């Protein structure tokens, strides 16, 4: 009898790829067979999508083949997932194949659901209403911005949760820079419309980001709950009856879990995310199901940095599980985001489940400045793409940067 265990990983994006590579290094093939499934073979470096509308990145620079990011000895299947039978420990693919598993890792991320908002994908979609959250939208928006010289650009987050909650703010900052560079900033109004009661979810960072919006002449509309997007009449209509006119609407559509989750009884919650233990990353659905990245319902940001920091804890805990040992490692909710603020500057925020983003330096006193605009942070953001392909995905550790949030070098938390 063979004692080879079977691991199936759903999704070969950030989390699925890094977990597969780390586990392949830990376990010999005769101990663990690893199968991974994705619906397409285009691995997009998603943070790069922010730059595409402004001509600062081209689509082919930020896309690579998924299977090429996987180490040898990982079996890649290209098909959409149809469903998971959590009782039978089995996955059915749309191509008809079934994969039985001893352990399952859900890494299918978050899905954009523009069709869930009335009118959004109706007349005007990709003409006056765009999103930069996928490649098609980001590319179409680039063409639109290129010819746009005057009018009202509205950036609207429909509702939380969204991937990378700072990306829409970064878009606003970069738009200010872009139109300034083009010499038409005086003829373009930029408005940031959010359902939140401030620019961002975390009070300290929210205050810093709000004042940046003000400095850059970007208007902020809060507590706006978009009920309908009318691309023909070019207005956002709120559930409370308020209306906002636009020439270009850059919307961040509602997000939900992957489509097959609805097809898989007992796997996900109402939005299609997987109930997951905040600390161990084991699902609350069944002990042999683990979750990484945006697919989890954790109270942490849906961000690549979070997925990255989860990776280490996840792999240790999966190893313990496979060996029948107690699960001991715990994730602290660590998130670390560079926020592009335009004019070749960026700021950096660092926080976790318990601690608000504060000022100071990361990862220690001589590191990058926190909550403050600087050129160094901008360079950090630019260099990150190379690290993503060559360090993060292959599962290499960065010296000095562990998964837990560092407190050394930080200013004392401002209560908030």
């Amino acid at each position, binding site marked *: 009898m063979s004692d080879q265990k079977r691991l199936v990983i759903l999704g070969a994006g950030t989390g699925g790829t890094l977990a597969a590579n780390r586990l392949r290094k830990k376990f010999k093939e005769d101990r663990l067979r690893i199968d991974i499934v994705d619906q397409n073979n285009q691995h997009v470096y998603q943070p790069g999508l922010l730059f595409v509308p402004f001509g600062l990145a081209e689509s082919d620079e930020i896309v690579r083949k998924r299977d090429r990011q996987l180490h040898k000895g990982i079996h890649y299947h290209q098909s959409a997932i149809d469903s998971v039978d959590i009782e039978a420990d089995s996955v059915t693919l749309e191509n008809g194949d079934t994969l039985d598993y001893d352990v399952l890792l859900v890494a299918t991320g978050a899905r954009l659901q523009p069709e869930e908002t009335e009118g959004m994908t109706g007349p005007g979609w990709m003409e006056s209403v765009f999103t930069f959250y996928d490649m098609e939208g980001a590319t179409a928006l680039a063409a639109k911005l290129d010819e746009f010289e005057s009018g009202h650009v509205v950036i609207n987050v429909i509702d939380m949760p969204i991937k990378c909650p700072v990306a829409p703010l970064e878009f606003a900052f970069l738009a200010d820079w872009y139109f300034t560079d083009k010499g038409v900033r005086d003829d373009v109004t930029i408005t940031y419309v959010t359902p939140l009661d401030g620019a961002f979810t975390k009070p300290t960072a929210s205050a810093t980001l709000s004042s940046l919006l003000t400095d850059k002449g970007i208007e902020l509309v809060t*507590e706006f709950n978009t*009920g309908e997007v009318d691309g023909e009449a070019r207005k956002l209509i709120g559930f409370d009856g308020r209306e906002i006119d636009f020439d270009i609407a850059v919307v961040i559509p509602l997000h939900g879990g992957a489509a097959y989750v609805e097809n898989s009884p007992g796997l996900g919650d109402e939005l299609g995310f997987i109930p997951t233990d905040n600390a161990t990353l084991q699902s609350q659905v069944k002990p042999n199901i683990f979750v990484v990245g945006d697919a989890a319902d954790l109270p*942490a940001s849906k961000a690549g940095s979070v997925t990255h920091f989860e990776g280490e804890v996840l792999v240790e805990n999966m190893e313990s599980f496979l060996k029948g040992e107690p699960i001991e490692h715990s994730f602290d909710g660590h998130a670390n985001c560079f926020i592009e603020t335009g004019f070749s500057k960026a700021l950096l925020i660092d926080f976790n489940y318990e601690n608000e983003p504060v000022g100071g330096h990361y990862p220690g006193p001589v590191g990058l400045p926190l909550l403050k605009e600087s050129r160094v942070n901008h360079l950090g953001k630019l260099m990150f793409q190379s690290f993503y392909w060559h360090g993060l995905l292959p599962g290499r550790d960065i010296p000095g940067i562990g998964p837990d949030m560092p407190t050394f070098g930080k200013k004392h938390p401002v209560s908030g």
Partner: protein
Amino acid sequence: MPTKTFAGTSVDVNDEGFFEDPTQWTKEMAPEIADEYGVPTPLTDRAWVVIDLMRSEYFDKGTGPTVRKISKLSDVTTKELFVLFPKGPAKLAAMVAGIPKPKGCI
């Protein structure tokens, strides 16, 4: 800790007025809380569908549901929610249902 009095009973609330202890809440308090925060009264059967859901979800999951979850978990559409609890349904329904402020998303 601040307190407020509804239906003749004093209850513990946070700075924003959300209940600290949902077990201090009684059905009789709901209309008074609603009046205080501008929620239309008398509370209709549809409003009660939402109030009951807020409480059962809170006791089940440890936090009140967001607007999107309310509309997925019941037959009350988002549009209707904004009529029943204008301005901010998730917050206002939590207030009237006597549960702590729903943990938003990050």
